[in-house]
């Protein structure tokens, strides 16, 4: 039996297909169109890469900020529930999970029985989010993945004093106008993001093993700075770190399907 999960986040859509616990396809599509169109597109991408037809999918669950807009889903589930389900399947030893996404940052604990025990999330402010970094990369006029690789070598990170993304952007522009090295500026941004994520993570218990997911996990510079800030090694799951919630939704689709033999 094939199951699907579709996650409509705030800046990208993700779809995962599974069969007998095996991942057939995991696709991530940053929004270029309406989220509800992107949901259809990313789902088609996953079907194509797995080589299966829509009709073969027994059950599909939607999650994320735009879950109600996934028209082909049979139901939906809360993002935290999906993420928790996915981490339990991929990293049973995880006791702390940090999810650093485009608009949301969250951290939660899982006990030895696999139960979710504490969770916290950012609410109103873009500080420390993927969107925050995207705005800064735009101000630096360089692709974010290039910046994050190159900034690893910066020896003089510039301090970014504003928490607010709008004010930090002005700070970045001032630094650029003063002729500062872009990599040193980005290294400073990375420290600011890591500091914000670490601060939020400390609101729950930092129990090993600590798993990092979400788009920010793809940013090598932030990952290093976050490891230094928390003084802990961060484990990355064996799946695209942006596709975890969609994977969890697919697993829940299987759990909830009455016809499932698994």
């Amino acid at each position: 039996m094939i199951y699907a999960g579709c996650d409509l986040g705030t800046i990208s859509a993700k779809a995962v297909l599974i069969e007998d616990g095996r991942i057939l396809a995991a696709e991530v599509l940053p929004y270029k169109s309406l989220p509800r169109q992107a949901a259809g597109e990313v789902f088609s991408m996953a079907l194509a890469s797995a080589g299966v037809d829509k009709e073969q999918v027994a059950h599909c669950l939607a999650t994320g900020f735009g879950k109600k807009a996934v028209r082909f889903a049979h139901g939906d589930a809360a993002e935290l529930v999906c993420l928790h389900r996915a981490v339990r399947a991929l990293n049973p030893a995880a006791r702390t999970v940090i999810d650093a996404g485009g608009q949301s940052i969250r951290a939660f604990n899982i006990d030895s029985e696999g139960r979710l025990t504490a969770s916290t999330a950012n609410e109103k402010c873009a500080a420390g989010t993927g969107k925050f970094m995207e705005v800064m990369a735009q101000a630096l006029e360089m692709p974010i993945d290039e910046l994050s690789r190159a900034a690893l070598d910066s020896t003089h990170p510039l301090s970014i004093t504003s928490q607010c993304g709008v004010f930090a952007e002005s700070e970045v522009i001032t630094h650029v106008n003063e002729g500062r090295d872009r990599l040193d500026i980005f290294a400073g941004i990375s420290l600011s993001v890591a500091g914000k994520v670490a601060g939020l993570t400390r609101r729950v218990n930092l129990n090993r093993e600590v798993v990092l997911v979400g788009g920010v996990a793809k940013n090598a510079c932030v990952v290093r700075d976050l490891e230094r800030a928390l003084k802990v090694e961060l484990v990355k799951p064996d799946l695209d770190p942006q596709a975890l919630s969609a994977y969890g939704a697919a697993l829940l689709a299987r759990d909830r399907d009455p016809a499932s033999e698994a």
Partner: protein
Amino acid sequence: MIVAGCDVGSLTAEAVILDDGRILAAEIIRVRPRAEQSAREVMDLALARTGLSYDDLTYTVSTGYGRETIPFADHNISEISCHGRGAHFLAPSVRTVIDIGGQDCKAIRVDASGFLEDFVMNDKCAAGTGRSLELMSQYLGVDFSELADLAAQAERTITITSQCSIFSELEIMHYLMEDERPADIAAGICEAMARRVKMLVGRVGVRKDLAISGGVCKNRGVVACLEEMLGATFVPFDQDPQIVGALGAALFAAERAKRSARKTRVATAAAGKGGGS
């Protein structure tokens, strides 16, 4: 006696020249990269308007974000005090002044003599500042100056739920993609701005009469929403509301000039007496 006040903010700089409580000139410019450059330029403009030179200024007070780096200022005073003083001069019945600048938002309470009683300020988050309004207009694809006119054509108000200016970009983009009318979104932007300012004002406590200063108060959409939320009408100024800070600085300059003149007189008199005995 001729004195001046110079207010260098994050987006604009203003200069006011006063002659015994009478406004001789008031100028506003968009800021230059460096505060001293902005100050010099706006003061040059004001002086040119009056045909005076720097030597004619008995005393100059600077204020605003760049106030500490103004070379021609004799003294600098916080913009909180200056806004309170300036507003009191223009409308003596005012007890609460809301100032929405480019990079901050303040609610200032003054007593019957225009002295500062209490204030609340937000300069950590862009929400509720001119910069945020400018950004949201930009996301909507209109100039900041056109936002109020657009909002006036609204049939309904689309609520912007994001508090963060960065998050509101996505929200506005989604509304546009869902074919919502730009005018209705513009009304939502004005409403969101007013909501944020109202929260701040609530923390200092509203005491009537109220007045509003700073660049954003030229946006009728935001002002109308704010008046409705606060259940009060702002006392109008007969001067450009962006010059209130610079005017307050000039009023402080006049006071300080008088005080130092008196001190000099007392000192001269004392010296004269000493010499006679």
